[in-house]
């Protein structure tokens, strides 16, 4: 279980990205977080794995406190949380397999990961992660040579290789076309259901949020202004979260519409 208790984040320079956030997320939930850019979606996810330190409040994962955790403690927390990024964040100049093996860093001795002599068991875990997202045949291809959708699948495989209990996805489809976006969201939902990994996804597109989310959290100026079942969400809810009327830019597209 994940708990945010009165969490605030203020960046150096005084920008307050999160204000007194309270959230409780049960194991196996699939939560979609929406809000305008700058509303604090990214900060919310990064506060959970300590990439952005919370200024005040308490964040716990299965009872372990994240706020204030240092070195070994923080690494242990991070190793249980997989993260997927908007820009994939792969090492372009190395192979897909090497990128996925990065997910094993916390479990492998330093001398092995530094020399590249990965244990066979960890290579096996990485291969299985690639199989789960359906691109194991690309294992020895350079990451830069893949399409955007394939690169994001490598990103998912890297997170899966951690064997995580929580998955964070920060705008995972913002750099992808509508068809690929649906496939990637489908992958995330499938992984959530089959493996029971608690998943938090930041999204911009409201139709995607409706289609894939079960629970919706709305952020506005760093505050949680909506938290509830996706079935109860109306256009009025989105207007409230966004603070303005919904436009076409907030929608991905109709089903399967191709793009250039």
């Amino acid at each position, binding site marked *: 279980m994940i708990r945010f208790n009165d969490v605030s984040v203020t960046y150096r320079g005084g920008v307050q990205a999160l204000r007194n956030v309270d959230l409780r997320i049960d194991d196996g939930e699939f939560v979609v977080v929406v809000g305008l850019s700058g509303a604090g979606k990214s900060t919310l996810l990064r506060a959970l*794995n300590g*990439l952005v330190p919370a200024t005040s409040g308490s964040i716990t994962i299965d009872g372990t406190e994240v706020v204030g955790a240092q070195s070994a403690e*923080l*690494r*242990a*927390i*991070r*190793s*249980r*949380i997989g*993260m997927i*990024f908007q*820009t994939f*964040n*792969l*090492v*372009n*100049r*190395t192979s897909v397999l*090497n990128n996925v*093996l*990065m*997910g*094993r*860093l*916390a479990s*492998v001795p*330093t001398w092995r*990961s*530094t020399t590249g002599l990965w244990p066979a068991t960890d290579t096996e875990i990485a291969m299985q992660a690639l199989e789960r997202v359906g691109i194991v045949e690309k294992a020895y291809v350079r990451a830069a040579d893949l399409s955007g959708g394939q690169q994001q699948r490598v*990103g998912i495989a*890297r997170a899966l290789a*951690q064997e995580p209990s929580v998955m964070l996805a920060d705008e995972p489809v913002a750099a992808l076309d509508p068809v690929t976006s649906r496939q990637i969201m489908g992958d995330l939902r499938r992984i959530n259901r089959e493996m029971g990994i608690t998943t938090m996804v930041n999204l911009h597109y409201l139709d995607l949020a409706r289609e894939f989310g079960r629970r919706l959290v709305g952020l506005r100026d760093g505050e949680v202004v909506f938290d509830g079942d996706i079935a109860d969400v109306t256009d009025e809810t989105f207007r409230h979260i966004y603070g303005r009327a919904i436009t076409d830019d907030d929608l991905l597209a109709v089903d399967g519409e191709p793009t250039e």
Partner: protein
Amino acid sequence: MNGPTIAARPTRPRPGARIWVVLGVLITYTVFAGRQVGFDISTFWNVWSNPLWEKFWPVPWDWVLDWHNVLDPLLETFQIAVVATLVGCGLALPLAFAMSPLTSPNRTTMVVSRSVMNVVRAVPDLFWAKLLVTAVGIGAFAGSWALSVFSLAVMVKLFSEAVDGADPRPLEAAKATGGRHLPVIRTGVLPTVLPEYVAYGLYVFELNIRASVVLGLVGAGGIGRVIEAQRQYFRFDRVLGILLLVFVVVIVIEQVSVAVRKRLV
């Protein structure tokens, strides 16, 4: 449909008077400085009409192309350059990572490594050579050490820029997996800057070939020592032969290095 209102085009800004002032100051000071040190452009011809230049010809090729006289010391120069490049660049790798705000494990490491490199860089390579010749005696050993320090300084300067400019996104991803600092840098940053590292290493090797010739002049071994000895005997014909040979070697190594570097970056 109404287009945007068309604004008047701006007039092209003129270079202004500043450039002439700067140029004027520069010329005036050059003339002044030349007077101060007794430089006279007319002495240029005196330099070239000196009978010294006749001593450069003809080149005694059988002496120059002799193994013991020239080729062996030249090989020594090459070896000094190889050793110095490997040692200097080897040390530069961890140092550059320690110095960059992106990859340094902590602030203390960053400040200390930066201070050390500032001191190393502040001392000229010829002075390092003299210092090491005094410390470990005349010969290739001192030359290798001096050139290693020189390589380290140059490599850190060049490679640090590549590290500072590395893509921070894979690094963030590596951090998010919960890895330790060293493996995170190794897997998240090193592969992204490795081609630059090798390219700069080759460039440093080129510099080292040329520098090790100069270092020989102060007793640090290699072909430079032979040049210095022949100069003292006024055997400028031999000196010219050696210089032509060195010139060919440097050109060949540079061409190979440039070709490899082009493929890398």
